[in-house]
């Protein structure tokens, strides 16, 4: 686990900013394309990072998204300052959402974000403190071709 990072980058995410929401994950995607990450892995990273970013935009005040690349894996960490999640198990249920009607109008709030992040990661950790914030760690292994 304590492998040396060969790349690490940080991006800020502002809560409530739907105009720029999705930017951080897009920048991460472009970096990974430039260094030639395999297409299938790239897609998993792109989806997981986008969902995590949009959760910060939708529910939290602010957050940062970190990209760490080691020779064997891609790690995305998202740490936010926000309301936190009362019941993580419930939040992880497909279809569970507290999105407002307005967010639903915009096509968010299907309650599939967290389940999709989990589905696309090889390892997924979520920790949350109510009233403080939520931390996600998404790990996606690179296959042998990429080492």
């Amino acid at each position, binding site marked *: 686990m304590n492998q040396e990072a*060969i*790349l690490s980058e940080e991006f800020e995410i502002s809560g409530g900013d739907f105009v720029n929401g*999705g930017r951080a*994950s*897009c920048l991460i*995607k472009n*970096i990974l*394309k*430039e*260094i*030639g990450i395999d*297409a*299938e892995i*790239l*897609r998993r990273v*792109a*989806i997981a*990072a*986008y*969902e995590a970013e949009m959760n910060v935009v939708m529910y939290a005040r602010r957050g940062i998204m970190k990209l760490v*690349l080691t*020779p064997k894996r891609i790690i995305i960490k998202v740490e936010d300052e926000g309301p936190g999640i009362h019941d993580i198990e419930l939040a992880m249920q497909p279809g569970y959402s507290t999105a407002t009607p307005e967010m639903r109008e915009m*096509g968010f709030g*299907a309650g599939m974000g967290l389940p*999709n992040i989990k589905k696309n990661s090889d390892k997924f950790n979520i920790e949350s403190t109510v009233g403080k914030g939520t931390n996600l760690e998404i790990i996606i292994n690179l296959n042998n071709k*990429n*080492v």
Partner: protein
Amino acid sequence: MSESIIYHSIKVNDQKCIGCVVCMKACPTKAIRIKERKARVNAERCIDCGECYRVCPYDAVTPLTTKTSDINLFKIKVALPSPVLYSQFGGEIMPDEILNALQEIGFDYVYDEALICEMASVAIEEYLERNKSPRPIISSTCPVVVRLIQRLFPSLVSLIIRMEPPREIAAKNLRKEISKEKQIPEDEIGIFHITPCPAKMVSINRPETMEKSNLDGAISIREIYNQIMQKLRKRERKFLLQTQSQISGIGIGWAISGGEIRGIKQDASVSVSGVYDTIKILNEVESGKIKNIEYLECLICPDGCIGGPLTVENRFLAKTHILKLIRKFGERNRIDINYVKQLYEKNFFSFERDIQPKPFSPLDMDKSEAIKKLRKKERILKNLPGINCGVCGAPDCESFAEDLVRGEQNLTIGKCVFLGE
């Protein structure tokens, strides 16, 4: 990947090219550089969209479409015009007159592609119903979009519908039928697409999804235009084509953006046209931002194929003509849906082989080296003036920095007019 073996449908004429920056600036994939006062196209980055051809002020970009005289290499000559052709001669001339004119030019058979477009619409619906694969399914009609996905969005290749576009389906069918009817070998029949689109030459000469294309060439609408005009002027109306009663309004609609999805009953389908909007939506699909869409039609040209680089008529007028024809020929189905379903069952529409991702080369094959180069590129970029003038021969400062870290031959930072001597 050796550049010389990547086939392209356009060529820069060095006699005419003076090395201005117009095409380089217009290229959506930043494939063009100016070297020694000539435009040079990077074969790996070029997707054959034709933007350079559209914008060149010196007429120095040549599309490599089939010469009309080449049809004589075949015993039986068949024309398969894109429905776009019907929009090119004003709003009064009807498709059958245009098909007639083609016959007078020297084609033994002239076949209306629109009918097959309508069949394809039914087949797409069938595909959507049967395949529960991830959404959205993306159209395979525009060869430039297919190449764009292979290059820029390799992870989306598996979303492309595994079905040949109408031109290939039509040609396949025709070759069989004519060969049987005339009792001649299939290879003595030459089938030519009459096309608004140079990229068709790539899908014909280097097909991605089959051994050999069913088409033998693609003739530019611009090239054959005057000949058709002459025949139309003579108005030797023969009314010998049975196709008039068969022309499909649904099929003609494929000439414009939204035509492909008009023919299918899925509400959750979306049409996009133009290169930048296509790149934008594919980016959103890649992030999983686009949800609840079943089918995505993307056409690289503005407003769809009527905005193709090899058209003659103003595309806004052309669009009006197409809409008029759609009204005239109706939204009524001209084809037997059960017959299409039978064909579908026999894999008549299917790809022979899957499309492969072909991503752009990374900064370096080795990840750690690539990251070092990425850093170096960022450092160089910080030192460049950032005004993107193009005088260095690259379309913008970022591309210049990238060329430097990729180790382009004879390229130094001194090429920047602001940092140079």
